[in-house]
């Protein structure tokens, strides 16, 4: 099940490995994305820490870790082609995977339904 942060990241934990990215809403708001700065594999982040940056023709924005964990993999296809983030932000445009995640922190995040409500405001 996907969870969302108020800072517009999504995260999904399957068998202890979390995949995260930015929400469709965030990708649309940022406009055409031109660059993604990835975290280093092996680096540990606490929930809310800046894990990377996305740049569009309009602006640069920080990406925050929705929950704590250690980066186990980054999406190399996305680094090579940032347009993936506009085409499929919540699919092929995932940003990185985390291991050793603090799954209990998922409770602090929003469900898809709750997130839809916050962005409708």
């Amino acid at each position, binding site marked *: 099940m996907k969870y969302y942060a108020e800072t517009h990241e999504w995260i999904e934990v399957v068998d202890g490995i979390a995949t995260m990215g930015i929400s469709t809403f965030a990708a649309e*708001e940022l406009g*055409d994305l*031109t*660059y993604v700065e990835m975290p280093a594999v092996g680096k540990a982040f606490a929930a809310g820490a800046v894990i990377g940056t996305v*740049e569009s*023709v*309009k*602006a640069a*924005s920080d990406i925050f870790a929705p929950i704590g964990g250690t980066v186990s993999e980054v999406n190399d296809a996305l680094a090579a082609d*940032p*347009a993936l983030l506009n085409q499929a932000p919540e699919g092929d445009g995932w940003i990185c995977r985390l291991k050793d995640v603090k799954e209990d922190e998922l409770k602090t995040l929003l469900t898809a339904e709750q997130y839809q409500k916050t962005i409708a405001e």
Partner: protein
Amino acid sequence: MELIFNQGAAGRRGVRLPKCDVRPFTTSDLPASLRRGAPAALPEVSELETVRHYTLLSRLNMGVDTHFYPLGSCTMKYNPKINERMAALPGFANQHPLLSQLRKGGSLCQGSLEVLYETERMLSALMGFAATTLQPMAGANGELTSVMMFAAYHKARGDQRRTVMLIPDAAHGTNPASAAMAGFDCREIASDADGDVDLDALRAALGDDVAGIMLTCPNTLGFFDKHVEKVVELVHQAGGLAYCDGANFNAIVGRVRPGDLGFDAMHVNVHKTFSTPHGGGGPGAGPVGVAEKLVPFLPKSRVVKHADGSYSLAYDYPQSIGYIAPFYGNFGILLRTYTYLTMCGRDGCKRISENAVLNANYIRARLAPYYEQKFTRYCMHECVLSARPQTRFGVHALDIAKALLDAGFHAPTIYFPLIIPEALMIEPTETESKEMLDRFCDAMIDIAKKAESDPEAIKRCPLTMPIGRLDEVSAARQPVLTARPCC
């Protein structure tokens, strides 16, 4: 247009160099690893080809000397030509920059030292501070200088815990960069519903790890924070220092002295408030004023005036953060600042801010029925509108900016500040007439109407520029950063 590299012919020359009267420098003077393998591919063109090339280039340019240039946050005011005349005076322009540092050399450049001394005195008076350094070579360099002095101040007091710099979200983007460069961690403070610093968020962020706050005043929303004195007071109570990003000083110059509000340091961008050229990313100057308690930490050297009326550079400041610029900053730019301040005088400075604020509010009021305004209060020197109403027709801030080019205006700043979606940030400055403001507002209103009646026409703009709509996305994703060689 052809690149100059693709013009001319091998061996063609535009100038005839005089015979060399010193020992010629040869490649054998250089280590082999630094020698060029082949001659540099420099353009080989005649004088006429050069003149035509650059004249044609200048005709493609939009500048404040040719167009109204309401680029928000940049203060594109007219630069009076007398500034250039003074800076070109041979006594100033031909002076060797090392002269003042040579033994007895100071006696040969008393005029230049006096200009620096007097400029510092005038800026200190306008900012309300004990002393000013003119050395920082740009606004962000002034920010860095200021927060380095904050660090030195805390260190001198033996307080090593203060590693956090508070940055409100309506601050200039360079503030967190400068703080990080000086070794601080940044903590962001949210704005409240009026666009001011949220005092509760500030209270929650304060602690004995806070070195200070960097407050852009007026902020990037174009507002003068209603409780700026409270912000400064709270930071002081927590043992921190308060820095004023004075990039928007044009809105308050002559009327508010940030030193009186309790700030400990601030920088000003002379290319904004004091009419020096913005050109090409430099040279610039970002003088910094400081309160009494930071004076010992100012960069060196400093210009001092002696009892006999003479001037010299002084170096004996053991607590100084050291050198931050070669020589004494960008003297030619500071000379233009001195000229402008002398021409305006104290009363003129008041009229600068008065008219800058009046012009921005005139535009705000005229465009209010057509563009969204998140905050309806009076603005300072710039107004931030939003093209959100136009997005219903598929027209965005970028399209409006392009349509303005066709209407004969430089575009405003768009998509900044980030906290306003579809932002159009308009800063007319004090140097535009009411007729020009009306022409601009008429164009903005026409565009708003056309966005509704014929959105496709707006999305095709610009049509009258040397080139049409640029593919900014491809340019950013697949940049081509080298000119193709000619042969």
